[in-house]
Each structure stands twice: as C-alpha cells, then as structure tokens.
C-alpha cells in the first residue's frame, strides 16, 4: 500500500467519504452521539457533489425519508445509534416488506435506555434478529478497522442492491472515533441499474408501479414472505463473509466481531507467543452468519471462546453453529467498559486446554 494516497480519517468520516465515493447522494438523519461526524461530514460534502443532506425531525422521519428516496432507486443512507436505531425499527420492517435497498449505519452506544456513549456490542440481537415486526432480516456487516469501515460501506450499497434489502453497518464508538490511514479507493459502480423494473419515477410511457408491503388478498402474504425467505437463503449461500486466522492447528478458537475481534487479534498473537495454539473466527457478515465455517472448524474438536462487548448475544449463534454446544465458552463485558488485549488473553489462558 502506498502511504502517499492514504487519508487519515476518523472511522465515522471514513464511512461518510466511502458513501459519497460509492455514489450516495442523499442522506437523511438526526443527531445522536457517537455518530455525529457522519451527518456533519455529509452536510459539508454532499452539496459539493450535487447531493442533498437533510436533518430530519426524528429518526422515525429520517428512515421514512430514506424509504421515499430508496423507492426511486438512488443510493441513500442514514446513520444513528442505539435509541435512534430503536426508533427506526418500524421503518426497517417497512423497507424489508417493500424490498427497498439502502444503507443504515449503527454506531451503537451502550444501553438499555439512554445508556452511555462508549463502545458496546449490545445491539447484536437487535441488528441480526430483527427488532421490527415481521419475518425479515437486514444484511448486517461488522467492520473492525477504519479501512474495513470504508470498504464495507461500499459493499453495503452493492449488497443492498443485489438483494433489494436494507444493509446495516454495525459499529461502535471505538470504530467511529479511531483514526487510521485509509485508502479512499473509488468503486467502478456508483449506482444501481437504472432499468430496474420496480423504480418509482412517475409512470411515463409505462404501466404505473407500486411499492407496498400490504398483502390482504388470499395467499398473497404467504407468497410474498416465501419470496423474501428465498432472498435470505440466496444471501446465505452467496455472500457470507468471514475471516479466519490460525485455525488449522488451533486448540482454542476465539469468535469475535468488530472492535472486540480487533482487540482479540492482539490477544491471540500474545497467546501464540506463549506457545498456545489459539485461532480466531471473525464473522464479517453477522447476518448471514458464517454458520458453515464455524461448524466445519468445530469438527476439528477445538474449544471455542466467544468474546463480546455484551453479556452474551452472538454466542447463541455460535452454539447453534458448532457440532457440540458444550465446546463453547463465553467471555463478555457489558456496555460500560472495553476489555484490553491482556484481559482477553487472561481468559484465553483460563479456557485453553492442550
């Protein structure tokens, strides 16, 4: 990598810059800590490229403005954190039912309630298990470095368009505030296909179109739901992303995502330096979850240590993925504290059996 062309940016800014470079020209949002760098960046830079930034009256309005824009097929995004994401859940459900592509960033903050503004992973369940009503999923991406925030923002738009789904980029205060040199590459594709047969444009010279999620006629609702499920099945078959490290000979495999995975990478190297055969599985897509990879590695007989900045959420999916749920231990810290590499190392040493 050439250092010359890199830019030194906060994670939040990296997301915003990536979105603009990916062709996103519309942002609707409402201020909330710790993600305000994103709307601030958008407010400053979208007008420079002919785009539009609008500060909404609430997160409920933001997500519905996004819905109205997404129906036209443009790349559009919003961002928020914990309480704001809770308010957006209604919109997420409608976007899923309407099958509209867009990107939402959750720089999550500690909860429940008003909570705190520091790093946490307490929103895992909300992100991957729904939160809004109905049988739907978001595509959930979990970056762990500044560069990955940038790259997955671009990927997020592409996946959203491929599946007509909402993509959530799930980060936290560490990822949002960390500054790193970032390669601000530009993707070739900066817009969805303008000929998609569902785009709302005004019915010029064609039959009127309809974006809706209400299905009252006999059998229609079930048919619609099966179609959504078929999309999720294809998503799981084609677009799972996961990083593995040192898993070939591992006796203990740490499973972690986002900031926690990055901290654990140091712990794992520390453990290896002590002669412990420790590996890492880092889900990059939290939905779809890398169930197959975890299942495969679990058949090597290694023990698993799931590490999260919460009291145990992803660990449930890890237990469902492994051959024997008894293989899986958990280390977690709830919102309010960030573990150091040494703390994770201590738990690795406790759990490790050669």
């Amino acid at each position, binding site marked *: 990598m050439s250092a010359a062309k890199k830019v030194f940016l906060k994670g939040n800014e990296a997301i915003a810059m990536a979105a603009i470079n990916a062709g996103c020209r519309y942002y*609707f949002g409402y201020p909330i800590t710790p993600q305000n760098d994103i709307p601030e960046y958008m407010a400053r830079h979208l007008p420079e490229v002919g785009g539009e930034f609008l500060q909404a009256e609430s997160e409920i*309005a933001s997500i519905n403005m996004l819905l*109205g824009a997404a129906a036209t097929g443009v790349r559009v995004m919003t961002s928020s954190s914990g309480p704001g994401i809770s308010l957006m859940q209604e919109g997420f459900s409608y976007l899923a039912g*309407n099958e509209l592509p867009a990107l939402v960033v959750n720089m999550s903050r500690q909860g429940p309630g008003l909570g705190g503004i520091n790093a946490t992973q307490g929103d895992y369940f909300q992100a991957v298990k729904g939160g809004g009503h109905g049988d739907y999923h978001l595509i959930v991406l979990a970056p762990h470095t500044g560069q990955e925030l940038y790259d997955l923002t671009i990927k997020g738009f592409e996946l959203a368009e491929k599946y007509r789904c909402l993509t959530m980029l799930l980060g936290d205060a560490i990822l949002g505030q960390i500054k790193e040199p970032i390669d601000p590459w530009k993707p070739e594709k900066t817009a969805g296909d303008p000929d998609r047969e569902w785009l709302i444009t*005004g019915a010029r010279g064609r039959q009127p179109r309809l974006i809706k999620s*209400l299905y009252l006629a006999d059998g229609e609702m079930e048919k619609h739901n099966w179609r959504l499920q078929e999309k999720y099945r294809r998503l799981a078959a084609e677009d799972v992303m996961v990083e593995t490290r040192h898993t070939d000979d591992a006796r203990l495999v740490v499973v972690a995502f986002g900031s926690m995975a990055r901290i654990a990478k140091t712990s794992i190297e520390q453990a290896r330096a002590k002669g412990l055969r420790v590996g890492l599985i880092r889900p990059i897509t939290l939905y779809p979850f890398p169930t197959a990879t975890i299942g495969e590695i679990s058949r090597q007989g290694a023990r698993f240590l799931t590490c999260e900045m919460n009291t145990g959420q992803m660990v449930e999916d890890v237990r469902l993925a492994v051959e024997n749920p008894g293989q899986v231990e958990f280390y977690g810290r709830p919102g309010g504290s960030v573990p150091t590499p040494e703390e994770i190392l201590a738990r690795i040493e406790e759990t490790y059996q050669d």
Partner: protein
Amino acid sequence: MKQIFARPASLTGKNFHFCPGCHHGIVHRLVAEAIDYFDLRERTVGIASVGCSVFLYDYFAIDVIEAPHGRAAAVATGTKRVLDDRIVFTYQGDGDLAAIGTAEIIHAANRGENITVIFVNNSIYGMTGGQMAPTTMLGQQSTTSPYGRDCQRDGYPIKMAEMLAALEGPSLVARVAVDRPPNVKKARKVIRQAFQMQVENKGFSFVEVLSACPTNWGLNPQQAVKRVAEEMIPYFPLGVLKQKDVVDVL
C-alpha cells in the same frame, strides 16, 4: 354526440370499495381532475397512507409508494428530494396525519417541502372500525369514546389547518368540504391550486377536506352530509387560511 362528463384519465376505472355515502370517492376524483388538468399523470408519485385511503393505488393510474402509518409526509420528502421535477402528493386521513403523523406533517410543512398534502378529515378512524380520532367532535361517540368525546379526558378536536397556517413554511393552507355541490366546486378549485403550487415550485400546499363517514358515524348518507354541514363546518370553518401568490387558473 358531445361528451360533457368523463372519468379522469388519472383514475384507473376500478370501482371504489368505499362505503355508500363515503366522500373518499369524490376527493379521489377531485385529485385526479387536478392531475389531469396540469397533465401530470405520467410524472406524479402518490404516497398512500394507512387507513381507508391505502388503496389509492388501485384507483389512481400513477406510481404509488405505500407509507407506514403517519409517515407519508416524510416518505414524500425523500421522494421529492430525489425527483424534484416530479409531482409528489400524499393522501392521508385524520388518524394518520393528525395523530401518529403529527411530527412528520408539521416539519414537512415548516420546511416548505414542495409537495401537496390532501388531508381527509372525517372525524373518526375508518378502516380500523370507528375509533376516536384527534378530530372527533366533542360528545361524538366512537368505539373508543362510547360515552362521547370528553375534553377533560380526550382533549379537543384538533384543527390541523389552523396549526399549519401558523407556520412560515406552507404556501397554501385551506379547508374545504364536499358535502354539497357548491362546496365540491370550491374544493375542486382549491385542490387544483394545491397542485399548481407544486408545479410552479412554490412549496408546501395543504388541503383539509371535511368528509363524511356514514358507516362509522352510524348514520345514513343524507344524515351524514347534514352532520358535516351542521356540526363539523361550524367547528372547522371552511376557507383559505394561508396563500402565497398564485395565479388563478380557473
């Protein structure tokens, strides 16, 4: 033979599902006439709301987005910001606009968002089966105010047009009724002006239409029309409450 009356081209021709005596059909027609008048059918996007008017898309031969309950003005904002050369209107009832969607409508109005809002006020929740609305009259019985709306408990019927007219943002705020032919004629004119405002990029226009809901009021159509005239209009006075400059096209 000279044809003097026809279905507006912006309507599909599908028979309305509305109850006998319901005014949605008239309001639909007036909106379609306005769209036809300015030849907007192929560049209009309708935002359907939740309630009896959700089936807008069955009746209008235009592109439609179905909004979550109360959020039509926010959805319209998103669409209009992208398609700023297209015409975007919402069509909302009183539960949708004046209860759950109050924040969205006030802020869209205050931004002077260049959209048109048709607000059908029939003083009750129709589709869910006759519950109390924010516009339900004092003393009016509904399934959730079975002893009549009580201002001590439920507050007062909310006057949306007056509220929005107090803001700087809107360009046109009016209240009309469709209970009798002279009022229908006035409503036609005002609804047309509301679309004209948008065509001329003059900003936010809002037309509240007092309407009858005979089924949920427990009245027959004649009695319901009488109630609009005798109970609703005195409390919700008709007229143009606010209007920035617009050329009279009639």
